[in-house]
């Protein structure tokens, strides 16, 4: 995969700070653009002046030590928290005042650090719930089982199995989501998120709890998902092999502030990042 970077000479002149976007996405509207994003929790600033631009087919990484505010950024992007300052543009649209549901309809989907599946429902139903907004029939059609119900449910069923087949999970369709092994639950969360037909997929520690070979498989799958669906993926991850292996642009967060942005090579050699992770060397 070509890792072409362009810095500052990008056509997005309005970008408030350095932005790293793959060359191929440069002439298109970025899927996500945040400006001076920040949130305070009762006087405590959790995230401050967070600026980021993500290209339409980019795989981006958000890393940083524990407690740096990475998940808080995801919660801001999905409007679980309303930002105190700054703006979030999804697909060129300002999301000011929008709810989680509205942002989801704009095409932002996510997974959760602590898995949040609909654990009493089947795997297939979990995926169908991801597709909720695309299944078009109302409460009455459902109760009266009008033709629309049968048609839409059939389409949804086929599409759900198709999505599950990304991770080879179609045989688990009838199992209860809560009964799946841990790794499968993480994968199911991704499938459910894909069901919403997103333009930007946020993955919160997708490799947590996975062994090295599972992680490698996950990396391949993430790239495959991006290539198949042509979407942007942003991930929080502590596994540096994964981050450095597949992310095209990386943003490093510490104490709620961006301390570095760049390509994996830039980040790996950045002294500020090394200090944030390992601490200052005692002279």
């Amino acid at each position, binding site marked *: 995969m070509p890792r072409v970077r362009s810095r500052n000479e990008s056509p997005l002149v309005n970008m408030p700070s350095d932005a790293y976007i793959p060359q191929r996405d440069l002439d298109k509207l970025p899927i996500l653009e945040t400006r001076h994003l920040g949130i305070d929790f009762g006087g405590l600033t959790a995230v401050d002046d967070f600026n980021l631009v993500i290209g339409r087919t980019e795989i981006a990484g958000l890393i940083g030590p524990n407690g740096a505010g990475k998940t808080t950024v995801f919660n801001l992007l999905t409007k679980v928290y309303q930002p105190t300052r700054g703006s979030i543009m999804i697909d060129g649209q300002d999301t000011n005042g929008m709810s989680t549901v509205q942002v989801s309809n704009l095409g932002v989907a996510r997974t959760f650090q602590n898995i949040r599946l*609909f654990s009493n429902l089947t795997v297939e139903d979990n995926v169908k719930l991801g597709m909720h907004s695309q299944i078009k029939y109302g409460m009455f059609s*459902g109760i009266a089982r009008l033709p629309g119900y049968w048609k839409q449910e059939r389409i949804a069923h086929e599409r759900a199995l198709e999505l599950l087949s990304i991770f080879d999970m179609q045989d688990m369709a009838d199992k209860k989501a809560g009964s799946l092994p841990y790794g499968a639950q993480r994968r199911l969360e991704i499938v459910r998120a894909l069901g*919403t037909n997103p333009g930007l997929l946020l993955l919160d520690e997708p490799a947590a709890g996975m062994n090295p070979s599972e992680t490698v498989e996950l990396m391949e799958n993430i790239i495959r998902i991006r290539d198949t669906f042509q979407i942007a993926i942003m991930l929080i991850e502590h596994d540096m092999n994964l981050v450095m292996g597949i992310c095209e642009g990386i943003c490093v967060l510490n104490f709620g502030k961006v301390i570095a942005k760049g390509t994996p090579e830039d980040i790996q050699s950045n002294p500020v990042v090394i200090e944030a992770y390992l601490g200052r060397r005692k002279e």
Partner: protein
Amino acid sequence: MGKMIKLGKKRSVNLTKTRVVDFSTYLGVVLAFLIVDAMLRGGMLSRSFSGQLIPICCYIVMAVSLNLTVGILGELSLGHAGFMSVGAFSGIVAAMSLQGSIPSEPARLAIALVVGAACAAVAGVIVGVPVLRLRGDYLAIVTLAFGEIIKELINCLIIGHDENGLHVIFNFNSSKTVSDLGLTENGIEIIKGAQGATGTQMISTFTAGFILVMITLVVVLNLVRSRSGRAIMAIRDNRIAAESVGINATKYKMMAFVTSAALAGAAGALYGLNFSNLTSAKFNFNTSILVLVFVVLGGLGNIWGSIIAATVLTILPEALRGFDDYRMLIYAIVLILVMLATNNSRLKALLARPFASLRARAAARPGKEAQ
């Protein structure tokens, strides 16, 4: 875009398991009705038992509809009887007012049920808007509060009907009586404040009860298996995840709550038209609790269980008539013991040991460990 993913092997649409469950539920209810109805016609049922048939239908509908709120939506409601009350009294008013214009009793009953359901649905919206913003025990206590408020408000109603239409007085400081309605001499007094509805024409039938149970089952079971029902259960399992995939939690909570209220209203109308005298005190906190007990003992989300529990627990206190003074005490003890037996893991393990092989077989069937 989906074409680019390799398709998994096509499998048959697997709705079979839920279909079998639903179908056997319907079939069971139909068979039970046919048998009981035949026995009723053959005069094989005791008076006290046949008098219980319509209330049993009402309580089944109440239990199934409360299961929608508590089991499917996952919100504890302690005021379900309030909706039954709204349905009962609005149904009585509708049926009594139409006495002159619609001679057919079944038609009047049907209209009364629809009116009861509609009024209870409106009450459901009014209660649901504030209640559904709260969570957990706070929500529970507020539903309880609404149940009591509905009871007291209905206690203040004086309603009559004559050729000029309905006359309604809200008697909030006990200063008014029925004579203040100003009815003409052909008028009928329908609801008399704290005395409740008296002289109601009893037009409820067992067949109507059966039909209402069937309608309730179709509504609840089909709702649960549809897109909306999935959304409702998703909110129960994880509200934040549900919102993250674009499900409007408020909308679907409201949908479940109002549907549940409407069904309770229809049950109330059927109940109200089964007795010549009825006061709103009948639908107090204890009735809400009674129905909740049906739902919990039958199993949360388990529609079959609600039907059985409602039937057995409505008949049981009657069957215990012989013990008279002790029957409610026995009922309380049975309730506590059942809860302990079904929820204590140590006790469960102890009970399960003799049935180890049985349980192993049950465990082999997936999706059976729901409770």
